[in-house]
């Protein structure tokens, strides 16, 4: 492929492409966390779930040759992690944040343990759709090569936004998340609802992990996640627990994450490591800018242990 020099235009284009590529795991993890937190519980263990999902997806894809089976395996593994978290948290006096941190370390550790033999072999990738085929410019083609999971994630965000208002399940999750007493008065068992919500949240995080190992970066290494699962949790708060907000925030984070590589690709050689830190700096700035000492967060589910 011959390279066409498009100069500094390469930076926003690479950021757009990067936003689409990098944001997908953020989308899935944050949507999963949004479901869990709307039910009144926080699962900080999604970082571990993400890494374990990445490992299991890669391993299954290597062994079976099918990336879709890998994806399924990652979702199942995530479901198990989520259900485990939800099950432990139903016991009285258990703190969901502490359990989340424990599960985060457990998930990454377990993934490293089982993942050792899969660092070398290569697995088939998840398919992407070349929306940029109309263009002759390779950078445009690269930027608009969109993975199907991104599209599924976008559709899922819209669906969840709709479902929180218009379905029985959506309303039940919101009731449980906002007032456990009201839920009990309706004959709902908050623990069961939260167990399932955490399970679904875990499965989505697992899918996010599968994207990491099966598409971008597209291989299994121990440094595959670098804290994306944790940032996705922060992103849910920034997005005010709104699925559409989660999607937009994930794009923003993805774009920020693509800033470093984009600058490097146009020949900036000094200080681009600083730009690699952009998502983390963005997280800090957002957290500071959206918090206030004198009022509680608007839209926060009333049962969350951090807002109570």
């Amino acid at each position, binding site marked *: 492929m011959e390279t066409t020099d498009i100069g500094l235009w390469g930076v926003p284009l690479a950021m757009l492409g990067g936003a689409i590529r990098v944001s997908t795991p953020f989308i899935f993890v944050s949507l999963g966390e949004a479901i869990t937190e709307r039910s009144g519980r926080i699962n900080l263990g999604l970082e571990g779930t993400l890494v374990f999902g990445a490992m299991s997806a890669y391993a299954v894809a290597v062994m079976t040759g099918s990336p879709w089976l890998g994806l399924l395996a990652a979702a199942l593994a995530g479901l198990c992690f989520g259900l485990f978290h939800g099950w432990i948290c139903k016991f009285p006096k258990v703190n969901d944040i502490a359990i989340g941190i424990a599960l985060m370390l457990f998930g990454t550790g377990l993934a490293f343990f089982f993942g050792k033999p899969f660092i070398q072999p290569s697995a088939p990738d998840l398919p992407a759709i070349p929306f940029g085929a109309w263009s002759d410019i390779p950078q445009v083609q690269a930027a608009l090569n969109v993975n199907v999971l991104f599209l599924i994630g976008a559709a899922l965000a819209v669906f969840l936004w709709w479902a929180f*208002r*218009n*379905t*029985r*399940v959506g*309303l*039940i999750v*919101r*009731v449980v998340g*906002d*007032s456990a*007493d*009201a839920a009990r*008065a*309706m*004959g709902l068992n908050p623990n069961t609802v939260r167990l399932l919500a955490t399970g679904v949240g875990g499965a989505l995080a697992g899918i996010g992990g599968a994207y990491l190992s099966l598409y971008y970066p597209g291989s299994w290494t121990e440094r595959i996640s670098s804290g994306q699962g944790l940032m996705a949790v922060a992103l849910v708060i920034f997005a005010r627990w709104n699925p559409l907000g989660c999607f937009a925030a994930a794009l923003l984070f993805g774009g920020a994450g693509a800033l470093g590589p984009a600058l490097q690709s146009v020949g900036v050689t000094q200080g681009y490591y600083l730009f690699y830190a952009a998502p983390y700096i963005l997280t800090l700035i957002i957290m500071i800018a959206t918090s*206030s000492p*004198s*009022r509680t967060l608007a*839209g926060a*589910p*009333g049962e969350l242990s951090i807002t109570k």
Partner: protein
Amino acid sequence: MSGTHRKAIGVETIGMTMRFGAFTALDDVSIKVPAGSFHALLGENGAGKSTLVKCMMGFYHPTSGDILVDGRQVAIASPRDASALGLGMVYQHFTLVPSLTGAENLVISREKVPGVIDWRKERGELAAFMSGMPFKVPLDVKVAELAAGEKQKLEIIKQLYLGRNFLVLDEPTSVLTPGEAQEVLGLVRGMTKAGDLTVLMISHKFHEVTAFADDITVLRKGRLTGTGKVSDLTHKAMAAMMIGDQPIAALDSRAAPKPDAEIVLKVKALKAPDRTGLKSIDIADLGVRSGEIVGIAGISGNGQKEFLEVLAGQRARDQGEVVVRGAAYAATRAEARALNVRLIPEEPLKNACAPKMTVAENIAFRTFDVDGNGKPVSWISAGAIKSFSARLVEQFKVKTASLSSPIASLSGGNVQRAVLARELTGEVDLLIVSNPCFGLDFSAVAEIRARIMKTRNAGAAVLLMSEDLDELLELSDRILVMSDGALVYETPIAQASVQTIGEHMAGHH
């Protein structure tokens, strides 16, 4: 749901007894609430009222006794059974989900909710249902944004929407203005008269019982101590049934106010953000003189809580000044000590105590770090704390198992007595009080009010914020009304009218 004609049902209990271990909460109580009647259930805290209604609602399983619905014996094993029979309860604390709209709350509380909710159809049905209701409440607004009176109406609407036509109302007006209370109870009364509804109301307020109820039943210590038609009973007779022969603290007679007494507390042009951060409270000018009680009335959520928090140092102010005896006051410990400012906030266990620390430690919070002459000490004496607290516990009749019990283990009345003991000991020049008697029983209320009056007569300036208008009318020398974050009306007690105050509380002026 809207088209069906509702029909009130009658409920009767026979020989209800409920024991928790060795403790008998309810002892052979039989009450009869005929269809279409408005029945009031009276009693002190712990008299067994809520145990009785929880047995009727299926939350508790009585040790013995029967329940009849429309004359037929029924088994109520769970709240679901009660609901199926048409029995519903409106709790003292709202059970609506704050972040959902009224319509969402109604639909999701239904027994059968479709998987996908067709809002167009549901809205139509709700509109038809609401058109047959005397209550008007906006259903498209988040419940958190409704006023207390609207929430209470929505709670009642929810029960009716769910097809329940025997309602237990647990102190339904405790968070409402007099106007709202009149309106809600009047509408409920209308529905019982029309034969659409039967009501059993738990209440403390005699004037409401007299105005709206047909019959009363009184419980004391788990036993039925009286019953009868409201028209045959005086308030005095009802009170006697409720409290028996225990002595009630009498209010000191009010010492004559001195119009030229020193202004102890001055608040000028005070601005502070409210709880949501969207609005602010704005107190233009307020003065409280030595030897008077200034009452601040208002519906909860109109900024009284924030105002108290500013005075207590719990909330930062944007601008304005608070002056106590000529000195700027920012509610630091040193200032409060130097100027003799004392504070009795609402929900004392939460706002004035460290719940897990002992009674003795809590009582000594103001004094533990100074010696007899007010000089700071570097070594705290546990013995001094104990003996100081023992004296106060004795003097203020705090009932506690021991001085070293955690204060959270005390009953509400005794927590408040302990806080009073701490705050009213020593010299008091300014006393700031908020809802001191909320949720307390008769004798505790009388005693606490008597103590506040005594403090006033001793020359303290008292600022009293209360949601209970009766309390304000009983204690205050002047009443101010707070609405939407500002003081909107002032009246001396001699000219105070409940009607006018209520209108200002509701913001109708």
